[in-house]
């Protein structure tokens, strides 16, 4: 089974989801990311979903899980590139993705991660 590639960019991990994932692939991504956060002591995870036309409750919860696990491992998560149709659908599904920060583009997402980490180091405590 192919796996979704995870790129290391300095202190962050970047994941770009390009394919329509089946459940096992999504779970594998969850596992892989968690492992890599620990492995690289990453402080930020950027998930690019600009290629996703559909995000259902399973994928939505996977994203929420990733953010929650990242938090426990002292990393922030930013999801970027959500399409309008996807956003509307997720709202109808009632998914609010707590603990997940969002941004329009990868660039903005990186900026956001920097802001979050700076705030964290200033307060001595993770930004919420």
């Amino acid at each position, binding site marked *: 089974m192919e796996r979704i590639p995870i790129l290391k960019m300095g202190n962050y991990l970047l994941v770009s989801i390009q394919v329509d994932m089946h459940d096992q692939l999504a779970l594998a991504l969850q596992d892989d990311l968690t492992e890599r956060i620990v492995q690289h002591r990453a402080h930020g995870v950027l998930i690019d979903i600009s290629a996703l036309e559909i995000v259902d409750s399973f994928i939505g919860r996977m994203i929420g899980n990733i953010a929650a696990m990242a938090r426990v491992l002292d990393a922030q998560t930013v999801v970027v590139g959500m399409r309008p*149709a996807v956003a509307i659908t997720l709202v109808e599904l009632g998914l609010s993705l707590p603990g997940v920060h969002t941004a329009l583009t990868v660039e903005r997402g990186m900026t956001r991660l920097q802001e979050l980490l700076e705030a964290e180091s200033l307060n001595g405590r993770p930004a919420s």
Partner: protein
Amino acid sequence: MAVQRAEAFPLHTSDDVVRVRQIVRGWSVELGFSLIDQTKVVTAASELARNTVTYGGGGTARLEALQDGGRRGLRVVFEDKGPGIADIERALQDGFTSGHGLGLGLGGARRLSSEFAIESRVGEGTRVTIVRWR
């Protein structure tokens, strides 16, 4: 109301769930659905297809292209011969989980569809029907 076209697809593996998603999208594009409507019906279908595979022990998804007067629609019927749902009302509430994590699937699918119907009998199986009109 007339059924212009009908076809059934197996739902046994998570690959089948992905395939049914893509087929539903294909049909909705052909029926001329707007992007938002396409996304809604495909997402609802994804929720229900997954339920069929994960909790229903596998089953089928039957697509029907509908024509009612001037409007066109897509109906998808998800059927399985699984354990069935004891308390449908509760299952439709968001956040409900029977320990098997039915979670947000049913309620969400209902909100995303123009029409929604569910029949289920414990020990016999479940049938969920959704319709999305253009």
